[in-house]
């Protein structure tokens, strides 16, 4: 056991902290899940990129710093500590990019990654459909072969697409072999949202932001060069992304360490609410537990051991911790809890945590079946 950072890592932390202190906007930006706020967040993303902070762990040729996973954790911690804006490019950088690094051709990597890092292209995730949520393999949007033009023609509908109305591109799964059984016969496509035949309709989320969209595909042509991984290999290609999404890369401990510190400050500003101390402390304990679990997990990753289904444990823990933490904040606020503000906004957003990236019911099935070894049927 050695829970100390190296001097090199401490120097990196210091550099990140200084840059963030000098550059994070003094006033919080409006939500990045609104049209106005999204534009402001994009300016922030470009600023991050200009000083090589947008994708610290990526290779230098794509705009990164080749930072280790330990340094990435440090950057995340400093990022949240500084109260920096939400990452509206998150779905590209944290969900699609790991898949492109693993499955993309050199041409795809060169073409897609630098523009993603620079905030030029914004990627939305196109998985859910009206009839395929938790049951992702029930996807019915389809791709039909167009040999004459060397590509595929996509038709169907995606929905609950986060920031779909503001994004320029979508990565998604489409059924390319209707004869194959559920998980087979899917292909992973990369689609520009300005392609002829694409219609995007934004709609409001529960928290009032226009953060969702439904995306309709009407005979949309996609060239072979925009297939990621092999044809009909989409399921296994996509599963590489779900590991990232559920686990570390979507929600690093820095986020919850910061929230729990803010909760303590909120509690101190409400001296009449001492009866809630136990729950405030529990949030601090839980955030610390998530941090330590993550350090253990990253040690495993660095040692070359696969994390696999255990990433479902991360997802269950952080999403449920986030709700408890925000519920406590709302009780601390008393009758002011109903007013718009960062805590009420955070509370509404926390409710989505156990739903997106695979519902917690599905995660518990995964833990039970693949970690504990219980029978599927």
């Amino acid at each position, binding site marked *: *056991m*050695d*829970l*100390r*950072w*190296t001097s090199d*890592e401490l120097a990196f932390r210091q550099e990140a902290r200084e840059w963030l202190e000098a550059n994070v906007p003094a006033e919080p930006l409006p939500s990045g899940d609104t049209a106005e706020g999204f534009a402001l967040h994009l300016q922030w993303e470009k600023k991050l990129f200009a000083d090589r902070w947008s994708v610290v762990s990526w290779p230098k040729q794509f705009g990164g710093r080749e930072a280790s996973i*330990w340094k990435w954790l440090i950057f995340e911690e400093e990022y949240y500590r500084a109260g920096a804006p939400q990452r509206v490019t998150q779905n590209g950088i944290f969900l699609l990019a790991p898949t492109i690094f693993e499955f993309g051709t050199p041409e795809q990597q060169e073409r897609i990654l630098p523009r993603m890092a620079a905030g030029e292209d914004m990627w939305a995730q196109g998985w859910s459909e009206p009839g395929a949520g938790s049951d992702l393999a029930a996807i019915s949007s389809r791709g039909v072969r167009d040999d004459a033009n060397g590509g595929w023609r996509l038709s169907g509908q995606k929905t609950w697409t986060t920031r779909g109305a503001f994004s320029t591109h979508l990565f998604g799964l489409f059924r390319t072999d209707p004869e194959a059984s559920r998980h087979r016969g899917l292909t992973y496509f990369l689609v520009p949202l300005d392609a002829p035949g694409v219609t995007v309709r934004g709609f409001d989320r529960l928290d009032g932001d226009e953060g969702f969209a439904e995306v309709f595909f009407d005979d949309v042509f996609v060239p072979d060069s925009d297939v990621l991984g092999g044809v009909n290999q989409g399921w296994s290609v996509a599963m590489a992304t779900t590991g990232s999404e559920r686990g570390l890369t979507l929600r690093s401990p820095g986020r919850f360490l910061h929230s729990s510190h803010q909760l*303590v400050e909120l*509690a*101190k500003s409400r001296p009449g609410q*001492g009866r809630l*101390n*136990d729950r*405030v*402390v*529990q949030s*601090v*304990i*839980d955030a*610390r*537990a*998530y941090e*330590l*679990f993550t*350090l*253990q997990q*990253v*040690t*495993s990753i660095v*040692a070359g051991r696969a994390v696999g289904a255990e990433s479902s*444990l991360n997802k*269950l*823990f952080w999403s449920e911790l986030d709700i408890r933490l925000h519920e406590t904040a709302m009780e601390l606020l008393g009758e002011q809890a109903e007013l718009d503000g960062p805590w009420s906004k955070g509370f509404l957003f926390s409710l989505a945590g156990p739903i997106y990236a695979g519902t917690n*019911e599905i*995660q*518990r*099935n995964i*833990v*039970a*079946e693949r*970690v*504990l*070894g*219980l*029978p*599927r*049927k």
Partner: protein
Amino acid sequence: MRFEPGEDAAALREAAAALLSAQSTPAVIRAGWPGGSIDTVRGVWQRLAETGVVATLVPEANDGLGLDENCLVPLFEEIGRSGLPVPAVETIALAAPMLAAAGDSRLGGVLSGELLVAATLRGGDLVAFGQNADLVLLGDHHGGVLYDRKDLELEPLETIDGSRAVARVVSRRGGVPLGNAGAVSAAWQRGVLGTSALLCGLAGTMLDLTVGYVKTREQFGVPIGSFQAIKHHLASALLALQFARPAVAAAGWALAEGESSAVDDVSTAKVLASDAAKLVARTAIQCHGAIAYTTEYDLHLYAKRVWALAPSWGDAAWHRDQLAISLGLKEL
């Protein structure tokens, strides 16, 4: 940064696990209950001591292993897993290094496994394993005093976990000072740490028992482990345990390194381990159904130990309170 046990800790775990998994059977736990043969329990303890683990914290100059609190965590997790009804934390983590520091000649008997030491460090009068330990360490904020059991008048008490052999100290005479205020306070931290690790081990055993059971127990023509209701209960139980274990390991590291956060880290560990073990116990009983509500089936042996250890060494609420003070949420 490297979050995994070092070689010494892994070796210690292996030595303890190999012996305990073979010898510390549920029958041995039952031998610790009233009417059982305590010599059976002591026999297993002696063989465990022969592996050297009792000397974990004793300096090499005193024939010890010269290891630190990092090594206590996997060791006590294994002892917890086995359910062996002995004051292992009190003997290994408290008494052995304190006797070594004091140059007390009874150290040899403790290291060889002949002498078991019970303890209470916060001025209380209830002593777990007080009915059959050889030595009893009674401590408070002034320091500790070590007694031969015969120097104490002890009243045996009946408890939920009959193998805990709890006694109330009615009166005392004699005794020798063992540890000043600082040493007793440091020993308390090691006791909390060790108990947290025991709780994780007990939880692991109950979870294993339950997973094994629900895979084979059939209702409606299928294993009950195929039902989502059961799966979700057990996933939640595993979740709590797997997030407690790193906190216990980190607390061991913090104590070993003398980190300024060590006291908070130990409290964090005890909260998570106590709550996780209680959740696992309740879940294990529920998922077993009626068989769990018998004493013939072994599950209760481990669950009852959890119900004894979770409230000992500061329950979760007490440790949360300590953290509230440390965070400035509450006055001392």
